């Protein structure tokens, strides 16, 4: 906790104010409890305003004072239990992180039984189980939708999960592997394979693979240079799911379809990362969300 402070000044100041405040409350309570009164004929508090306006002494009940004392004692106990005085960790060694972790553990324990029923579902029974779909959807919306979009159709650089273009394979077990360990997509920079014009030619060839708009002559020239690309994307440009090399023949452009963009990516390469979820989701949750994702692409058929 001290790491947030570069010296002892602030913690000591805060601790002193806290303790002085508590002690001060007690002293104040003691001091104001009695009043020396010179002229106590009507049991007034001794205050007189505007010549004759007196304040009647209407004593506070003792139990009320007792409550005040209890709060003072409670304040001290609290400071002892919790890291209220920043210099100590407190008797309970409480931290926000521990409390958060405890709550997570409790929730995991609570919901584990519910998830266990769904951990064994296959795709067909999943699609017919409205409750399972609902839970799968919730997990997706809470964890995956930030990047892939709520409708799972992605956006630039974040893959669309509802088409049939699977970078790493679309079987349940492939999807699970992707979610569990994450994926690191890497296209190396290949700017050195030729001149700038050569790179443009390759880009035109790549566009021609999917029948997109391209310059035929440049594309023919580019084909000669495509060999080095083929080691990952395949000679036919259909990609390779074991290493996540995208299919170039399907008019699906994860990072955009402009020629400039393609040239840029050939020149400088590109990295794309899907984080690993094995520490965030339980195996049953991963199973459910994999089924849900698979279902979305099936619906498209």
């Amino acid at each position, binding site marked *: 906790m001290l790491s947030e402070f570069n010296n002892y000044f602030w913690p000591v100041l805060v601790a002193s104010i806290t303790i002085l405040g508590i002690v001060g409350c007690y002293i104040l309570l003691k001091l104001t409890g009695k009043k*020396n*009164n010179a002229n106590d004929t009507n049991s007034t508090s001794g205050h007189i305003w505007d010549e004759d306006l007196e304040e009647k002494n209407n004593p506070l*009940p003792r139990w009320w004072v007792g409550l005040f004392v209890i709060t003072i004692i409670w304040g001290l106990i609290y400071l002892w239990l919790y890291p209220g005085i920043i210099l100590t960790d407190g008797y309970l060694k409480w931290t926000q992180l521990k409390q958060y972790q405890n709550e997570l553990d409790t929730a995991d324990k609570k919901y584990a039984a519910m998830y266990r029923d769904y951990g064994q579902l296959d795709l067909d029974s999943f699609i017919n189980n409205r409750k399972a779909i609902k839970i799968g959807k919730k997990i997706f919306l809470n964890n995956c939708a930030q990047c892939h*979009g*709520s*409708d*799972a*159709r992605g*956006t630039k650089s974040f893959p669309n999960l509802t088409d049939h273009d699977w970078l790493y394979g679309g079987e349940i077990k492939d999807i699970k592997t992707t979610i569990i360990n994450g994926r690191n997509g890497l296209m190396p920079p290949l700017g050195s394979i030729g001149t700038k014009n050569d790179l443009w030619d390759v880009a035109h060839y790549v566009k021609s693979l999917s029948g997109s708009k391209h310059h035929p002559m440049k594309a023919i020239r580019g084909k000669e240079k495509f060999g080095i690309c083929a080691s990952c994307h395949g000679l036919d440009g259909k990609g390779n799911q074991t290493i996540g090399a995208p299919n170039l023949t399907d008019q699906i452009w994860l990072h955009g379809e*402009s020629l400039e963009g393609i040239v840029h990516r050939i020149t400088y390469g590109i990295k794309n990362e899907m984080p690993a979820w094995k520490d965030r989701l339980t195996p049953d949750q991963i199973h459910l969300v994999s089924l849900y994702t698979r279902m979305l692409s099936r619906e498209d058929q």
Partner: protein
Amino acid sequence: MQEKVVSLYQSEKKIYPREILGFYAKWRWFFVWITQIIFYFTPWIEWGGRQAVLFEITSRKFYIFKYVFYPQDLIYLSGILIISALGLFLFTTLAGRIWCGLSCPQTVYTEIFLWIEAKIEGNFIKRERRDKSNWNINKIFIKLQKHMVWIIFSIWTGFTFVGFFTPIKPLLNESIEFSVTGWSLFWIIFYGFLTYFNAGFMREQVCKYMCPYARFQSSMFDQNTLTMIYDKDRGEPRKGKSDGKQGDCIDCNICVQVCPNGIDIRNGLQYECIFCGLCADACDSVMKKVNKPGNLISYTTPIILKNNLSFSKKMKIFLRPRITIYSLILISIIGLFFYKLENRYDFKFNVIRDRGILSRVDKNDMLQNVYRLKIMNVGLSNDRYNLAVDGLPRIRIDKKTIKNLRIELDPVESDTYVVTVEIPNKSKQPGNYPINFLLRKLGSDNVLFEKSIFVVPKDENKKK
């Protein structure tokens, strides 16, 4: 002059109110019965296979007979609070602290605890004498008896209270097996303890030092507000205080003895007075015995007391503009409240724009925005719903969404639906456009509107 030390704190003297039965005391008991029957029996009522009144905090569903409320229904809670506040204004202006004297839980439980105390310990004289006597087996036994009954009653009260928040029948089984745990146990004990402590020991101290309502009530009084008044002109001088003319007050002190708040009403209106009317009951009973007219202490206003007003003039005082206006406002708000309650749709929804996707252009050259719709069925039947969108030319829900969108919800179920909305690309200048989602319950004309924004980005075309 002599210096003297005055303590600003003091121990409160215990009050031993004398029992009395009369007009006001009967009203008081009437309200004790009414409020307690409602409190102790409501949780046991069944409604359509569930507990009729149940406030489920964990699932955030609040059942009151045929109604199910959700946190989104906060407006109805506000309505109840507004009605209560206006009711407070009206009744305080009209009749002062009548709530305090007749039906406040503090009053009601104190009354019940006093009754138990009187049954076990005897009347107020015996009680005071026993408290002052030395401890012996008999005193311990009697005190033990009283506290046992108090505690059993308090635990039952705490149990009933928890029964409003967690199903009471399983709770009863758990209680019989002593297997109640967690927050239920805490609240049974805590609420029970507060009942025991406040009604058994704190009593009038709560009204005097804790209750905020008691302190700001006076600002709602006016000179025509009904208060407990001792007719000084008729009563004074008291018996034995003067050799000549004598008032009706025989100075028997019974009005002081019965007062649960330990004041003497003959000193005029005091802040401790809760308008319970027990002094008036007591005084009337004595006046009857000495063959004098009653109402020496009565619940009235100074003007009515001083002048012998006709019925219509009295009504004019009671129906003064302030009261009439308060009543009209109160009645119209109650009417509005129930009108809204009866006509509320039994489904709700709200729309959140997708946080991940600003917009995208799909391969059919449509500009798409994504929305999450949270739809809740708060009714009692399984229902299906239709969704539509408008607000821009040629705006529509995209085909893929429509193909898979089947909004069907069981009673009290809610779900999130993802909807992709599209317009032809480049059909609009870049900017944010308001659009509407319309949700209709199938088989009804109930349509809910919900606003959202459709974003047409600046450089979507360039980026490609």
